[in-house]
């Protein structure tokens, strides 16, 4: 009797735009155009590829999925027994259906949600799930800036099985997406941070001993340890600029207030001074004052400045001072970026980038730091 539940969500229209040169398929108008141009759905094919690989471990999990094109079809093609939940209008699925599927699977207590889609699908799932249930993406969309995807469908399946067997760890992965309005109207490519998911990762840096307790708990306690250490050392006469990310959020949790997960908040004397500030407001607040930036690396590549926290502009960094930047990261986070690979900065200002580069301290726990290379 398999005791693991694997959720499967197929976004049937993801990837439609790519082949015909469209950026994504969000928005009914785009979809209509794509279908008119005879685009063939890529996502179901990718999902099928992954499922076929999953069959080698069919006895180890129970598949839970949505009806028809949202998962049932591909499961049946592989002769995988699955539990069908929810209801959709066949042929007319929308983002709402994706969200419902994710919600229903979370309620059912699935151990992992495997989805086939792109950034848009990732965003929808993230909106509902957050960090509550581990998620892994089968790459099938055009836009894949998020760090939640495996390299290919086969690897996605193998990683999913590894995770269900307790042989893979979890890491925090950013859900990013291009600001479509900015692109279509002004032709600008700006990646925005939408949220975070907990995703299994490949590079196994620990012995794959089967572990019963969830590694999300381990990661949380690591973040709490970091937060405790930082809060203990907070100076009363200093503004603390808290950047996005769940590691930094743990500091706010410790102090007892809700942090803007995707934005920048300011704290002084252990109280929230301002929330979700932009560059202008930030500069005004810290003018002539002592301030420290508390930041955590973003993305699978490990950017500490330049992705998802553009409010921390070069001017802000200059005002605060290079020596007043506190970098936080759990060891899991650093290892998922890769030992030997540096953290990255891309502020837009070469001089600042240069000053930020070199070997820096990173707080990894209570009374623990590592020295890590930072590069532009």
């Amino acid at each position, binding site marked *: 009797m398999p005791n693991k539940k694997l959720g499967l969500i197929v976004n049937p229209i993801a990837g439609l735009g790519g082949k015909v040169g469209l950026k994504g398929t969000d928005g009914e108008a785009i979809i209509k155009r794509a279908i008119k141009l005879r685009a063939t759905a890529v996502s179901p094919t990718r999902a099928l590829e992954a499922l076929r690989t999953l069959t080698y471990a069919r006895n180890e999990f129970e598949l839970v999925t949505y009806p028809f094109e949202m998962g049932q079809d591909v499961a049946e093609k592989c002769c995988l027994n699955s539990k069908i939940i929810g209801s959709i209008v066949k042929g007319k699925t929308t983002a709402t259906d994706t969200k419902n599927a994710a919600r229903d699977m979370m309620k059912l207590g699935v151990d992992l949600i495997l989805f086939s889609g792109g950034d848009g699908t990732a965003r929808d799932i993230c909106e509902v799930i957050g960090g509550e249930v581990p998620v892994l993406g089968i790459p099938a969309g055009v836009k894949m800036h998020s760090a939640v995807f495996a390299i290919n469908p086969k690897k996605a399946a193998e990683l999913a099985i590894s995770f269900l067997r307790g042989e893979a760890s979890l890491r925090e992965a950013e859900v990013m997406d291009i600001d479509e309005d900015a692109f279509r109207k002004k032709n600008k490519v700006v990646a925005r941070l939408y949220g975070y998911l907990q995703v299994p990762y490949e590079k196994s840096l620990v012995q794959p*001993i089967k572990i019963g307790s969830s590694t999300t708990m381990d990661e949380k306690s690591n973040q709490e340890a970091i937060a405790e250490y930082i809060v203990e050392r907070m100076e009363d006469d200093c503004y603390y600029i808290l950047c996005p990310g769940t590691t930094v959020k743990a500091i706010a949790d410790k102090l007892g207030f809700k942090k803007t997960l995707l934005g920048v908040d300011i704290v002084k004397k252990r109280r929230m001074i301002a929330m979700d500030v932009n560059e202008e407001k930030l500069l005004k607040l810290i003018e002539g004052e002592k301030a420290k930036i508390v930041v955590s690396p973003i993305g699978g590549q490990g950017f500490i400045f330049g992705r998802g926290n553009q409010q921390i502009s070069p001017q802000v960094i200059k005002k605060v001072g290079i020596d007043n930047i506190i970098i936080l990261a759990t060891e899991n986070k650093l290892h998922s970026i890769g030992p030997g690979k540096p953290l990255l900065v891309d502020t837009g200002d070469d001089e600042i980038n240069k000053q930020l580069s070199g070997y820096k301290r990173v707080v990894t*726990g209570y009374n623990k730091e590592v020295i890590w290379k930072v590069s532009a």
Partner: protein
Amino acid sequence: MLLQKRIGVISVPIHQYIPNSVPEIKKNMLEYLGVKDIEELFVDIPEMIKCKKRLRLPHPTPELQVRRNIEGLLSKNKNRNEMLTFLGAGCWPHYVPAVCDEINSRSEFLTAYTGDVYTDLGRYQALFEFQSMIGDLIAMDVVSFPTYDWATASGDATHMAVRITGRHEILVPKTMSPERLSVIKTYCQRLAEVKPINYDPITGQLDLKDLKKKISARTAAVYIENPTYLGFIETEGEEIGKIAHDNGALYIVGVEPLSLGLLTPPGEYGADIVCGEGQPLGIHMNFGGGLFSFLACRDDEQFVSVIPHRMITITSTEHEGEWGFAYTLPKRTMFAARERATTFTGTATVLWAITAAVYMSLLGPKGITELAEVIMQKAYYAMRRISEIDGVMAPIFKSPHFKEFTVNFGTDQTVSEVNKNLLKHGIQGGKDITKEFPQLGNTALYCVTEIHMKEDIDRLVAVLEDIVK
């Protein structure tokens, strides 16, 4: 060195322990590596730090001479077969059954290290049997791998208590072993404050009033030793545990295992964590090198997750009816968590744990009960007879004693003088504890076990009588 002048020097560098030290073999291997000079392999060591001169050590010595040299040195010692000894205080002279030495000289047990259960099933099973028999002896369900000694185990127990309760103070009896106290303090620096509790001057028992006064919401644990360092039994074990628990503190009990043949096991009077000295369980004194300790706790996930040593659980295998073993919660320890670990034991004392398993198997339930009775009776006899000497009191405290007891020599002679005189008669007297416990005056700590025959005790008494006059 005198040694070198007398022996034949071996100059040919073929060593009996090094199969590849034959020049021909080295040449072949270097050829395979494409290296002309073996020094090329050491290229990473900067030239300036390489030793240029021969170390000032002996020349290679043949086994015959090594034996003579060391046996000659060891003959300058007087071991317990040659001298009647009444020393205890943390390391005790007990009889070691021949089977114990037989099993711990098996080269497989002696030369194995950290193999997995597939190659080292025997080692794991013996360890599980050790864990189990200790568990039965102390009445606790979770027992971990052995550690260095009772002192470091009590340090580990303190770390556990701090982690579990989040408090930073431990209360200890003033009668505890000063060596163990020193070690706990070293382990507790920056982590917990160690506060002593008074004892009743007549009975020696832990002063419950003082305990109630000093315990607070800051206390992580109350630690007692039973029997105490000074040899008597803490009879209020259960009450002490209640006081600890009533204040939200944990109860740590350190024990001497043979006494548990007669005494209630700490698991039955409220102990949360138990440690103790395992040397009496079939291990020679080895000048203090035979020490090892066990650490045990309640079967509670919170405790198990902070116990700082490895431990194994019994399990099944793919084959029905076959026993297997696996590490419990392997991610807890240093080996997975580096700085977050509570402590850091690595290579500890497994060979002694296996020996203890053999010892406990030989004794069986009847054996340990009988042994404890025999020891207690012999000690009692010794105390009575010594007390008959004028001016000497044994024991000082009016409590039941197990195998050790205090002997006070009044004001005429210091313990040091008494011991010097005893030595002239080939007797090693008890430990001089005048510096450790000045409030007890000229007092020594004597130990009597199953190895002491009536004649031995009578001889001690006769000589003491002489000396004291």
